[in-house]
């Protein structure tokens, strides 16, 4: 009964909220538009947007020593999460059977274990940094903590259900994913989608003023 609900109605509702919510958030951002700049441009907005999108992947040399843990943990978590999402065998099978109709090679089990450990370590370090560092603690909101906990729960239930020995564990993982999808559009998790436009806007804004951002 619960398994049917989670696999059926809840899943459809979660997907609908996820997609509509994201569309609504993107529409809301672009609806604001850009302020008209009457000054003579000193650089290309497009090249500034592209440059900043890439340059922000590497921390500035002046501050790298002070944020190295943040950067390393950030890469550990994000790369780990994307590899798990895209190359874990059960995810590929799910995409093939229920979403896309085709699959791709999955990573071996040992790789799954190593990558999930890296991702977990990264997430834990990032959250500890958020809680223990006086500045990040001050600028963190409840939303940031909820997002972290949701991601942690999704990853944990996923690992617990790895061998799919029990339907209950698979259903628990899927239910946590559904909660995550419902929360996603209304939270700071949207940075996964809006980071490109945000960086692009900043890059373009400064580039037309002749500032390398």
């Amino acid at each position: 009964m619960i398994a049917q609900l989670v696999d059926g109605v809840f899943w459809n509702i979660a997907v609908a909220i996820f997609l509509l919510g994201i569309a609504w958030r993107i529409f809301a951002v672009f609806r604001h538009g850009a302020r008209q700049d009457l000054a003579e441009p000193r650089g290309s907005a497009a090249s500034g947007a592209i440059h900043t999108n890439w340059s922000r992947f590497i921390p500035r040399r002046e501050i790298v020593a002070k944020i190295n843990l943040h950067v390393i943990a950030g890469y550990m978590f994000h790369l780990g999460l994307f590899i798990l999402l895209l190359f874990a065998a059960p995810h590929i099978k799910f995409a093939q059977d229920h979403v896309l109709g085709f699959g791709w090679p999955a990573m071996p089990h040992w790789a799954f274990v190593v990558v999930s450990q890296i991702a977990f370590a990264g997430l834990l370090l990032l959250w500890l940094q958020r809680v223990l560092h006086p500045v990040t603690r001050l600028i963190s909101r409840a939303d940031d903590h909820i997002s972290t906990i949701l991601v942690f729960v999704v990853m944990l239930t996923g690992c617990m259900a790895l061998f799919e020995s029990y339907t209950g564990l698979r259903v628990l993982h899927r239910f946590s994913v559904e909660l995550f999808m419902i929360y996603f559009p209304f939270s700071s998790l949207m940075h996964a989608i809006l980071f490109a436009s945000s960086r692009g806007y900043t890059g373009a804004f400064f580039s037309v003023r002749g500032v390398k951002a």
Partner: protein
Amino acid sequence: MTRTDKRRHRMRKMLAWSGYTLLLVLLLPLLPYAIQAANDTQNNPAGYTPPTVVNPIEVPSPGAELWREVRQRDGSYVGDTQVKGVETGVLINKAGEDWRLFRMQMLVPYGAILMGAILGAILVFYFTRGTLRLAGGFSGKKILRFTLSERMVHWFTVALFWLLAVTGLILLYGRFVLIPLLGLEGFSVTASACKEAHNLFGPLFLFAMLALFITFFKDNFYARGDLKWLSKAGGLLGGHVSAGRFNAGEKIWFWLATLLGFALCITGLILDFAVVGLGREAMALSHVIHGISAVIMIAVSFGHIYLGTAGMEGSFSSMANGYVDENWAKSHHDLWYEEVKGTAIDAQEGKQGGGVPSGGVAQARRDI
């Protein structure tokens, strides 16, 4: 008799009666064995001689010999098989039964007794002595005790330790505690989930232990005054005892945690990666060491947690925001205080040393 004396007298009485009760609870289960032993001695003072068993069937069962071989009562036997691998020729490993008996008859009950006894002792101590208050109260001046990186390493290890401890305890005690609550199927699912999580987070604990060791080992070597600190039980027996950055109790905890932590990691990796070519006896031994280390580490950690939180006023802030009160430093780590007293900052105004302990920009500057 003054009010304080009356209170002390009442506390002593409570402590004594708690001790008697604990003794009674420990001794009561032994009573049936004592009665049985007394009866045996009375009935057979010269000693017990087992009766001679005569096999009533002259012709042995044709299957008996086969099953004697299979069960390998006369010692282990390695057969031939086309399957190549570790112990693939062994049908039944007799040592497995020894391991099972150890787990069920020693590790499970004695582990529970050890953890329960330490928890009980902490509770008795808390209800008799209460939180150890800071002598002279809070001064309002703060001293940095643990940097951000030290706290990160500590909490990273703590998070992994408790994730592993909870999942491990469920695997060890789940059948006794959770089956009555969840049923067989429910416990089976829970145990499977815990096993996966335990195996997954286990290897990470090795990195946490390495980081913890590298971060804290330099301040945890023996120093003059540590024996005196121990002989006076850290001041619990009365009087002030001097200590450096870490006192002898903390040092013992550090080295115990290091020893047990690495034992857990190494044996855990052997159990986690069963494909490396070790036989079942090595695995059983690893499990024995793993179980004993885990139970001791969990039990002792109760004391560490108690002293770092409810047991001692002003301690928790050192691992929460990195700062301790100046009076706390003077009271518990006076030798260390002498080294760092120039760095004290005002908790309210953030003067000197530049910091607001509860979380300001100046503190961030020091922490980063």
